[in-house]
């Protein structure tokens, strides 16, 4: 009978597999769990920091190859698992304690497609297996109810007067649109906006979430200030279209997050180009590569370029975003790729930051 292989030998062999985002080997990262050895048959779990990991299949393959090379191994089975990494405040703070990562999606400029991008990213993350919530912070022009086909739905509350988010397409949703009807305009000054957003952040029963995406209104005003002061955001994603008029405001959003110490996960260029379905010609309607320009300026990664696709508009208006309505389309694939990039950047940021989980001090006076 062949000599049985040891757990240590397997771990040593797996050290050659590196996570390209975290830039470390999977063994020292603690990803390898539950190693089982049954003579020549080896099985273990590969526990990643996000189910949306863009390189999970490569990592799995790398593991299988590394272990299979060991003498005496006849069969390798790797099971992909995930345990979403969280901000240091997870479980420690009073604001959104059950949310591992709170990610703001912002633009500076209005009309660049923030809500569309946020909705599709949320669904792409959810499709990967993560628990996702989406908070529509646009008080004056909420779009999320339309995009998820839940216009006119009303919210319920718990016995202790907390708001229960709506469930649609497998994710938890909250929007001011669920509290007012479509034809009523919310005409409020700053302090009211501040109050409602604070309620959305502190009085909602979100349950445990891996990612809560905040769809921010355009600008750097009341809503943004309230959010960045009330919750310890894990990161921010900036959306821009390629032309200079949009880039100017995107820079302002970047500077705002930098000032309040929120890590910028990256920039997404929306409406990057239009690929004609008939002739295949690519038209760069708003120019292209603008996001790269500010990415270089501020040393922030570009998470992806989303094309102009009439189906994005149709599916959004019909209440089922394209990632769910046409999952095999190129646009849906691009969205899944970007969601993976966002999740990967989030994991890297969580790994490198080691800040205080709580800053609260009760003063003792003699």
């Amino acid at each position, binding site marked *: 009978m062949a000599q049985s292989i040891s757990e240590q030998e397997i771990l040593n062999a797996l050290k050659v597999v590196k996570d390209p985002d975290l830039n470390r080997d999977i063994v020292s990262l603690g990803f390898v769990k539950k190693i089982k050895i049954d003579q020549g048959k080896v099985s273990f779990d590969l526990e990643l920091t996000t189910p949306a990991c863009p390189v999970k299949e490569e990592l799995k393959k790398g593991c299988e190859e590394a272990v299979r090379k060991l003498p005496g191994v006849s069969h390798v089975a790797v099971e992909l698992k995930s345990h979403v990494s969280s901000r240091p405040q997870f479980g420690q703070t009073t604001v959104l304690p059950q949310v591992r990562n709170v990610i703001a999606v912002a633009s500076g400029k209005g009309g660049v497609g923030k809500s569309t991008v946020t909705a599709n990213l949320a669904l792409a993350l959810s499709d990967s297996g993560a628990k996702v919530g989406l908070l529509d912070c646009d008080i004056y022009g909420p779009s999320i109810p339309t995009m998820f086909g839940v216009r006119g739905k009303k919210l319920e509350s718990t016995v202790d007067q907390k708001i229960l988010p709506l469930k649609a397409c497998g994710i938890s949703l909250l929007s001011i649109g669920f509290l007012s009807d479509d034809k009523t305009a919310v005409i409020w000054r700053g302090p009211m906006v501040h109050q409602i957003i604070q309620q959305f952040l502190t009085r909602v029963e979100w349950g445990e979430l891996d990612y809560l995406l905040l769809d921010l209104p355009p600008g750097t005003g009341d809503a943004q200030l309230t959010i960045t002061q009330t919750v310890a955001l894990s990161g921010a994603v900036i959306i821009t279209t390629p032309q200079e008029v949009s880039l100017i405001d995107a820079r302002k959003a970047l500077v705002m997050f930098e000032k309040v110490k929120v890590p910028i996960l990256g920039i997404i260029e929306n409406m990057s180009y239009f690929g004609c379905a008939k002739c295949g010609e690519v038209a760069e309607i708003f120019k292209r590569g603008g996001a790269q320009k500010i990415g270089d300026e501020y040393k922030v990664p570009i998470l992806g370029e989303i094309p102009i696709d009439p189906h994005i508009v149709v599916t959004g208006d019909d209440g089922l975003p394209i990632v769910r309505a046409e999952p095999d389309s190129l646009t849906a694939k691009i969205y899944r790729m970007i969601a993976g990039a966002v999740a990967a950047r989030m994991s890297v940021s969580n790994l490198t*930051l080691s*800040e205080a989980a709580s800053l*609260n001090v009760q003063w003792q*006076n003699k």
Partner: protein
Amino acid sequence: MAEQINEVVEKIFQAGERALGVRWKDGHESSYEIRDLRLKCPCATCVDEWTGEKRINEKQIPADVHPIQIEGVGRYGIRIRWSDSHATGIYTFEWLRSHCPCGRCSRQLKN
């Protein structure tokens, strides 16, 4: 956009009866005399937002002023609720680090 580790807080704590302590990620520790911190409150009521002129009357701040509670503001600062009912000031980590009163930091600031 690199994170500045000298502005990342590892811990906020009460350092004795009259001092607030901050331990930074780079290992440095700062200790702030609390009345001095109250007098330097950066809020719009205490400092004119346009001119930067100090509006606070030092004589009106009680000698034994002290924090009641300290809480985090997002991930960039703290808010102190004071015994004289003042509570609008946000002390950003950037501000706190640049106002570290220790000998080494204040010498660096002068140079």
